[in-house]
């Protein structure tokens, strides 16, 4: 990488790393350290292909998503939680809204990386099912079924979700 390319890379990182860290943070279930590692690793891959990468931000995002999915593949057996159970720790000291937020975060953190990635793509990045499928390199059907299962698992992990909110099935999934 020559000086000009290095400058462009540094400018890119300086400008976009806050947004990329937000994404990495969510993908790793709120683990700051793991998020830094994930972004760092994606940036290192981006440097290696810098000259060929036309849209660096899209590339970094895709690398992070796919890395999470491949991580999930490697550890799927140990990380997948098929049976829902309540999150750890007492919740109920604050207002109901705060309680629900905490519950949702804990539940999101307990999803598999792939489940979380699909929810982040659909509801944080607001991508369509087809766009999410393109990022993950899977079929639209896989995105749809994963999103469906993920929301169902969220409800199971955080039953309070269903009470104050007017949750109408999974109509939008």
């Amino acid at each position, binding site marked *: 990488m020559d000086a000009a390319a290095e*400058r462009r890379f540094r400018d890119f990182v300086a400008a976009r790393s806050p947004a990329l860290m937000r994404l990495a943070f969510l993908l790793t279930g709120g683990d700051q350290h793991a998020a830094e590692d994930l972004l760092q690793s994606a940036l290192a891959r981006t440097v290696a292909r810098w000259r060929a990468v036309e849209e660096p931000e899209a590339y970094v995002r895709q690398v992070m998503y796919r890395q999470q999915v491949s991580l999930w593949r490697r550890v799927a057996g140990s990380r997948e939680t098929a049976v829902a159970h309540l999150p750890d720790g007492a919740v109920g000291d604050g207002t109901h809204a705060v309680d629900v937020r905490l519950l949702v975060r804990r539940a999101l953190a307990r999803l598999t990386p792939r489940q979380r990635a699909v929810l982040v793509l659909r509801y944080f990045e607001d991508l369509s099912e087809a766009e999410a499928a393109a990022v993950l390199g899977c079929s639209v059907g896989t995105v749809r079924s994963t999103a469906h299962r993920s929301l169902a698992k969220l409800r199971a992990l955080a039953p309070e979700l269903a009470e104050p909110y007017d949750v109408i099935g999974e109509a939008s999934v």
Partner: protein
Amino acid sequence: MTVEDVVREELDRWADEARTPSGLADRALGGRRRRRTRMIAVIAGAAAAVVVGALAVPGALRGGGEQTAIVLAGEGLTTDGPAVALPPSAEVSADPDASPPSRLVATPEVAMYAYSVWDYEKVSQSRQVFRRTWYLYNPAAAAYEKTPWAVVDVAAGGHVAVLEEQQASRVGVLSPTGRVRWVELEHPASTVEWSPDGSRLLLTGFASNPYEQGVVDEGGPSEIVEHVRTGFTVVDVGSGEARFRALESAPGQMGVTMLGWSGDGTLIWEPGPTSEQTKLFYDLQGRPHGAPPHEGETYQEAGLSPGRRSLAVDSPGRGAVVAVKDVASGTVTPLKPVAGHWIEQAVAWSGDGKLVTWACEQQGAANCRVSEFRNRLLLVDADGRAAVPLTGFRENSENPGAWEPLFARR
């Protein structure tokens, strides 16, 4: 509100808790790029504290080829002459067809006293060690000769400091006869840098070998290897006194952060997080300190000119990569293609009027012949109007086996 809405809201709120660390770019750019920024001959007319001897003939150390150094633990040698003594010259010395050069590369102001060839040594399935093989100029043989040292730095006038290992327990100063005066270190050191006046050495220590990293393939490093900086040692070369100070990397700083001297040798710095703050400064007690004027404003290795009149910077426009900024007026002069070369990086100042640069061979309006990584050292006037090749072309500066120069004031 649907469960999707709740998830949407909560993801957005949760993401706000992410903290963005500094040093992401540095770390991604890798170990070999991270540290070689030097301030060369920063203070015009600064008196060298180490007495410069008469023209000396280097001895057994560089007797030739693969020969191992004769290493003797010496007594205090405060008046030693430089290990590499170059006579004054009004001429530019170049080896424009050789890469790496075999003849001396020098201007009347600065000389390439040494160069290194870098490579990786695989130490496990997923890890490798970045190593340099150092070649030092031997005036007696009129050639660069291989040395056994793991780390080398050269001060103004040709004084040479060395580490035997990548985590060394002592630092050596070479004498003209090839003897090495060793100073024992309380904490292992992985880098060494001469103070601008040549009176002290700055050594950076890490808890593990900072040159060890994940094996890098086309997809990037296989793993991110963490190295915790322990601190730095300042060695007074005259007395041999070594003083260690603990100094961890700045909060949020990632990767290997090696330390260097400020231009006047009163402060030290580590790489900074942004292009506006390319260096973070500390005093010699390890306390954070403001940046000296213009020293944290560029990524270009050449930095400030010796008279502090000009700063080598990244060019703001598209027609050039490197530019020269007049510090007083703020005027920026882009170094556009000259003499058939694109200027890629500013390596070192030669006086206030010329820059040693890396340059590729120009092809068409905006391209390099073969690639941007095929480049040579080129001496360029600071106004960008004339240039003289100093060496032949490196085939690919990104590949193991590439060489990198070490310049210091003559």
